[in-house]
């Protein structure tokens, strides 16, 4: 029987960061709790924060379940995460700068050339081009899990367009509205500076050609996208336009927005669409989606795209293994955050180990996301394991495996009262003129008892994440 680290209780004793929550729980009888839960849900629905799983159909206005029990970090716990996440974000950007430039890390033999240059996410169109300040990934989401008081592991990095930050902000907003007392009694570091930090980060990477306060916009695939709410929420908080590709056009070496007063020049695009849909001239000549000519403007320094096309080569699951190596190679530092040991099924030795131990491992597709296409060995039936074995043998390159981590739990409100449930954490690191991280992030919680899958598409919920001020 695996022992899971409970973030609130050490035996019967309450761990220090959660001390402020003990009396709060006691003061909340079941009826009050249900009432508050209903109130929270009504608030979420009112502000319209919903999550539609793409292609799943059903209610497009579905809410992600919100658990009112906060997840808490002490200041010293956070300080380590803060340093670790920033270090990783810097190393990932240095890596991108390098592989789209001279490729020193490959020449030095620290990362196999094949993994970089034959990677699907490696974008030829970007090589030889250095974006402003040499930054390729401006918003880095680092998925972390905890297995002990001082043990944190990075599950994966998200260098393209990590989503979910609106939940970090809204969860806090809802908690402050519903339990102001909690915030008076506990000194909780605020997260609401995120939007302004994001705006400043984006402004700081405006093209050199831009000689005035830069115009910024968020580029969304449109209102049918499951994250549309987040796009419009961030645009509103930052006070920038939310544009679709059809709102933009290219002329005279610049990108322009179609406005009621005629064309308006755009300097920085925070895109929330995939590389393939940015510019049909560059990526998909057969498609009408995207802004024709955008990449030409980008590569000539007329506009900044955040994140850079091709940034995905840094967050690939096969590249992941080498991130600690990047930290040492580029920063000459020791990695603060550890990777989860990973077996590459593409390597014969690793494959053998994985196939021999499928029952104990978590196996993922190299390019999969959202918790789809993965096997959690200890939670799977014999038949499921055998079916997955066949898939791995068919295409070993496409899979990696990791040990099943003993994810920490935090108390969570459930039907019967309060019970421990497994959680992870995604902080959002901003990389511009400065590297910054708001004290908080998105805590996802697996609401099903015993489940280790926290993805919202697989029945996960979210929590407010507190960092206690000193």
């Amino acid at each position: 029987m695996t022992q899971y680290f409970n973030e609130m209780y050490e035996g019967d004793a309450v761990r220090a960061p959660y001390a402020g929550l003990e009396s709060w729980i006691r003061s909340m009888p079941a009826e009050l709790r249900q009432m508050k839960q209903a109130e929270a849900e009504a608030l979420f629905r009112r502000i319209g924060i919903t999550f539609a799983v793409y292609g799943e159909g059903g209610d497009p206005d579905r809410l992600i379940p919100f658990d009112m029990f906060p997840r808490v970090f002490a200041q010293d716990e956070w300080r380590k995460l803060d340093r670790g996440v920033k270090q990783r974000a810097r190393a990932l950007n240095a890596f991108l700068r390098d592989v789209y430039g001279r490729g020193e890390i490959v020449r030095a033999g620290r990362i196999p050339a094949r993994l970089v240059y034959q990677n699907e996410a490696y974008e030829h169109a970007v090589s030889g081009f250095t974006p402003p300040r040499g930054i390729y990934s401006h918003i880095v989401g680092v998925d972390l899990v905890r297995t002990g008081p001082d043990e944190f592991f990075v599950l994966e990095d998200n260098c393209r367009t990590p989503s979910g930050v609106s939940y970090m902000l809204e969860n806090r907003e809802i908690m402050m509205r519903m339990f102001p007392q909690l915030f008076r009694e506990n000194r909780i570091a605020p997260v609401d500076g995120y939007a302004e930090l994001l705006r400043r980060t984006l402004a700081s990477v405006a093209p050199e050609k831009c000689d005035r306060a830069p115009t910024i916009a968020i580029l969304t695939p449109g209102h049918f996208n499951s994250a549309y709410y987040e796009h419009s929420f961030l645009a509103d908080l930052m006070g920038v336009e939310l544009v679709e590709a059809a709102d933009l056009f290219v002329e005279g070496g610049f990108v322009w927005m179609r406005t009621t007063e005629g064309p308006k020049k755009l300097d920085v695009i925070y895109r929330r669409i995939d590389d393939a849909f940015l510019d049909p001239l560059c990526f998909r000549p057969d498609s009408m989606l995207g802004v024709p000519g955008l990449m030409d403007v980008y590569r000539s320094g007329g506009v900044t795209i955040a994140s850079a096309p091709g940034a995905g080569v840094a967050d690939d699951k096969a590249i992941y293994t080498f991130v600690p190596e990047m930290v040492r190679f580029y920063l000459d530092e020791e990695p603060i955050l550890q990777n989860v040991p990973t077996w590459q099924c593409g390597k014969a030795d690793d494959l053998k180990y994985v196939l021999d131990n499928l029952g104990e491992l978590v196996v993922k597709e190299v390019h999969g996301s959202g918790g789809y296409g993965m096997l959690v060995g200890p939670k799977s039936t014999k038949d499921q394991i055998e079916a997955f074995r066949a898939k791995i043998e068919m295409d070993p390159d496409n899979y990696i495996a990791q040990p099943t981590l003993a994810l920490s739990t935090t108390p969570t409100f459930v039907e019967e009262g309060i019970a421990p449930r497994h959680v992870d954490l995604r902080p959002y690191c901003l990389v511009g003129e400065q590297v910054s991280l708001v004290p908080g992030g998105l805590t996802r919680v697996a609401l099903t008892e015993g489940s280790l899958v926290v993805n919202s598409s697989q029945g996960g919920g979210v929590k407010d994440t507190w960092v206690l001020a000193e």
Partner: protein
Amino acid sequence: MLSRTADNLFWIARYLERAETTARLLEVGARIALIPSAGHGYRSEWESLLHASGTADGFKAKYGDPVQRNIESYMFFDRDNPSSVVSCLERARENARIVRTALTGQVWDALNTAYQELRALERKPRSEIELTELTEWVVRQTAMVRGAMDSTLLRNDGYHFLNLGSALERADNTARLIDVKYFVLLPSVDLVGSELDNYQWQTLLRALSAHRAFHWAYGGEITAAKIADFLILNRQSPRSLIASAEAAMAHLDALGRIYHHSGPAQRRARAIVGDLAETRVSDIFNEGLHEFLTRFIREVGVVSSFVHDGYLSGEARCS
């Protein structure tokens, strides 16, 4: 603002107004159907309603003969009919969802609530709902959304695009409603001034919620001339053509001031208002009411297309 955002706002208002008109048309039909008409039986009245809303072909393809029950379904609930109440409200709400941040919470709330109630209405068995219940519901909901817009929105360009949409759609729709009565409903010229004629006029006034207002303004006997004056040339009448055209002009002028630039849309709107201001009822009847209305509808269409080209299409350039 983004042309697309302006376009969304413009169309929120147009769809709302159109939903209301469809509901009012249904009400006209239901009332007129209550009295026996000369010659045709009441089938033709329903048919003329379909003609008035421009949906006769679509209906015929789907249902064939105009039976009241089917017309009600088609004009209220049918998603295949782009002018049905459900189609219009759904699109108004979808447009609003896209530009949520350009609206206030109150406006969104009002629209979203209307939409949620509509979905509940759809689930109810048709036999349990009276037509008047439906039409009144629509008029009430649109009034609430309009109220929220009026009392909570910032008076910026977005506000004027929204109201411009309302004004242009209303001008068009009122003209079409009058046209139903005069051109389509009345079976023969001999009946002008007859009891049937008067009854139909009153019904029209009632459908426009202008029945009492008319009496306050004019009193006495109802005549075609008085009603035409009231619905076309009287500034006090909120849905009259001149009031709608003036509203459109005012919002266009406001946009011109905000953008420091006026264009063909402003000029054309001003011409329409100027023209109406100098028109007398006798001029209208001399020209022929139907001919007059057709010309007016076309003019309003021209303004709409100038608005589209100049602001909403995104193709405009600062010349």
